[in-house]
């Protein structure tokens, strides 16, 4: 590892040029991944990521550089070249490092390079076979496992010294059902802030059968009708609605740049009183959790919206300073190659008081979205759209026939006010979230909710 004398020097060079703040992020990450199609390994890859990112703040400017040549010569050159972008300012010095003592709340047992590939293979093969056996229309099943061990070390000019180990493991299954010249797919991808033990203890065969079930059901489905209806969205990955429609707009970067519909609305009612929404980076062993964020701040349970009222944003130190808000421990980056920005961790709508049965029976004609796909949003306008992987009609208060090809569109700020019912007990689901600081693991979540009216795209 790089010694502290060199780190001190790297941090001092930009300050000597007049920068306000400097930070190094040192990362080493061991990755493994394996994927099978119908029981045969299609790819088995593993590797080492290793590098250092240098972040310099100079007034409103963020300067970022990185390298994977960690020799002293290379690092000093990097610091000197990068510091050339500093526009002058008061010269300051770094403060002595104080080691932030971080308790690892998500201790992993089995590291990626320590797992036998044949054990992983057996697990994935068994899942493939379970999914294929579910129904003869299921013709292609892809199963996969990926796991990584990320060691990070952060030092900054304000004397921060922090380290963290993040070990994550994820299983994926994609089942394709064939019939009448068409194909339908069913997908799940659970993961955790854990080592291979997560996969070991997971009933993967059952999950793979569920993926097949979803694909087979959609195969016989007709197209969803287009138009405006009440929409019921189930828990777990249904939370992608909040993530896309509101979460991105609650990141301090969008607030500071005034590119969010939620800018300047703290303390205001922005949602129906039924809505309480939380970003919680501390959930034990959850896929989106961290001990510390990527600038060394402890993660928190951050209440964003409480009973409809906007309470806080996802905040880091840089944009937080501009907004006069404290870090919520949500500054994240994919790797040393990217400057961190405020991002989501585990973000969900909290449970309410409406019974699931009551929610369904309250709808005369509408759509029940059991499994959501992904989506996207324009933070400036709040316009979002996302796909529904598994949907059913609701007729006369009862779940009726399956429908496919549905997508939901609307505006985040409007939809939040139209959440009419919220069932108890939220559940979380994993995903990867992409933004300016790269692709990071996050959880979305919610209980079952009812939106009074939404535009559904299907076949008119």
């Amino acid at each position, binding site marked *: 590892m790089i010694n502290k004398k060199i780190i001190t020097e790297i941090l001092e060079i930009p300050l000597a040029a007049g920068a306000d703040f400097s930070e190094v992020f040192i990362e*080493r990450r061991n990755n493994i991944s394996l994927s099978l199609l119908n029981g045969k390994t*299609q790819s088995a890859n593993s590797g080492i*990521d290793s590098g250092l990112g240098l972040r310099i703040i100079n007034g409103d400017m*963020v300067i970022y550089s990185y390298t994977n040549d960690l020799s002293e010569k290379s690092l000093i050159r990097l610091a000197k070249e990068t510091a050339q972008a500093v526009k002058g300012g008061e010269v300051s010095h770094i403060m002595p490092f104080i080691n932030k003592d971080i308790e690892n709340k998500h201790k992993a047992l089995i590291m990626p390079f320590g797992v036998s590939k044949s054990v992983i293979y057996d697990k994935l093969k068994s899942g493939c076979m379970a999914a294929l056996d579910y129904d003869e229309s299921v013709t292609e099943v892809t199963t996969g496992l990926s796991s990584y061990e990320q060691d990070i070390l952060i030092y900054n000019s304000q004397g921060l010294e922090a380290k963290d180990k993040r070990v994550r493991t994820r299983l994926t299954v994609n089942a394709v059902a064939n019939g009448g010249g068409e*194909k339908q797919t069913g997908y799940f991808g659970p993961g955790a802030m854990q080592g291979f033990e997560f996969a070991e203890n997971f009933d993967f065969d059952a999950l793979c059968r569920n993926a097949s079930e979803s694909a087979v059901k959609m195969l016989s489905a007709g197209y969803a009708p*287009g138009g405006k209806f009440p929409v019921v969205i189930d828990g777990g990955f249904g939370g992608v609605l909040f993530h896309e429609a509101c979460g991105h707009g609650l990141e301090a970067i969008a607030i500071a740049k005034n590119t969010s519909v939620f800018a300047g609305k703290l303390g205001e009612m922005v949602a129906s009183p039924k809505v309480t929404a939380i970003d919680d980076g501390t959930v034990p062993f959850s896929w989106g959790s961290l001990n510390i964020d990527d600038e060394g701040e402890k993660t928190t349970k951050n209440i964003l919206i409480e009973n409809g009222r906007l309470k806080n944003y996802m905040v880091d130190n840089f944009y937080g300073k501009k907004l006069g808000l404290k870090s919520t421990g949500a500054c994240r980056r994919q790797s040393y190659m990217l400057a961190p920005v405020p991002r989501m961790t585990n973000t969900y709508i909290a449970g309410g008081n409406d019974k699931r049965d009551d929610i369904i029976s309250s709808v005369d004609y509408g759509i029940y979205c059991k499994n959501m796909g992904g*989506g996207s949003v324009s933070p400036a306008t709040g316009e979002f759209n*996302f796909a529904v992987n598994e949907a059913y009609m609701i007729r006369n208060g009862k779940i009726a026939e399956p429908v496919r*090809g549905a*997508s939901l569109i609307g505006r985040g700020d409007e939809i939040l006010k139209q959440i009419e019912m919220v069932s108890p007990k939220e559940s979380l689901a994993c995903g990867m979230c992409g933004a300016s600081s790269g692709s990071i693991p996050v959880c979305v979540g919610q209980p079952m909710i009812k939106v009074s009216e939404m535009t559904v795209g299907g076949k008119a």
Partner: protein
Amino acid sequence: MDINEFKNTLFEKAKEAGFEDYEMYGAITQNFSVNIFKGEIEKYRKSTSGGVSFRGRKDGKTGYFYTEDISAEAADIAVKQALENARVMSSEEDEEIFEGSKSYPDIKTYDPTLDNFSDDKKIELAKDMEKRAYAFSDKIELVTSSTVATGGGEVFICNSKGLDLSYKSNVIMALVSVLASDGDKKKTGGEIAASMDYKDIDPQKVVDKACHEAIDHLNSASMKGYTGRVIFKNEAFIDLLQTFSSSFYGELAQKGLSLLKGKEGSQIASEAITIVDDPLLEKGYASVPFDSEGVASYNKTVVENGVLKTLLYNLKSARKAGTHSTGNGFKGSYKGSVSTSGTNFYIKKGSSSYDELVKSLKDGVVITELSGLHAGANPITGDFSLLCQGFLVENGKVTRPVDQIICAGNFFKVLSDTQAVGSDLEFSVSGIGSPSLLVDNISISGQ
């Protein structure tokens, strides 16, 4: 240790471990980008980085490993992990370590004059674009980003069969995104221009396009749904083609993940459609002399007047199909394994101007932008259902902007239902290209 020392160590260890053939693929990149916000530098990035990928064959199986740590210790882990990875691979996925093509095309992917375009000039260009965007109209409320980026690098492949190849490339990109407002509604617009020749970047053109995209869509409203003819504007169809381009990969067809499986030689599209993959295209964004396996690049027609002529193959999928590699065996980076990718993959232009297409549509919608393709489009089935915006066409004339509508259809049916192909071929920076298309049987849902 330096990269050559590392290679020697790695190859020695690979031989010792019993690998029969082995290869090191590497990439070194230099990146620069500057982002201007309200006249000041908001983000400034500069980096030099690289990594290598190792693959080795043993007992008819191929194993991979990559590393950014170029050390003897990493070489040890690489060989051990690659061996383990090879063991669990299916032997059907065995790859070929390639001894090389007879000759390689001489194409320009690197312009040395770009290296003399200083960082200060890039900063100036980004500031200039931002100024021009604010000057474009009072309706430009915010220039959310004005960015100039350059990238350069070298890719090299050397293997135990004596292959030793490398090529250099570089590119400059200028990107503007804006937020327009007329008090009530807000709309975003963005444009990106790229070239290896900085003189090709016209800041006013980039700004005009981004600002028009935002302003022209202000006062958008939804419209009544219908099923019938639409125009996909070139930039919208590029995104659709990109999303479904993997259907043309032999590899995915063999895995049953493409509906084009077994369709070579048959009519899969309207006669108006011809699709080519041309890695030799002059100043093409995806032009390349050889693929990640070292196979020489060449120009090929994928769909000719609606007939599927060939899928795109790498060495492995070509072997399985009993044909030769089309030079489309690419890896995303040194971190990945060889899969398939198109290069400059585009629909050839037709004869109708955009205005003629609008006239012939008569009544309907021009779709200019599709959102959420990663979620609302299924690359396997071809089904898509996407939020989009565009313009209403009434009586052969564009009358108003439209948004909050969803267009749904099936990509393969779109190819068959294409009635006319525009002459306005455009490319995205990833090399995918399309003219505007007049297509029937699209379902639009709105109010």
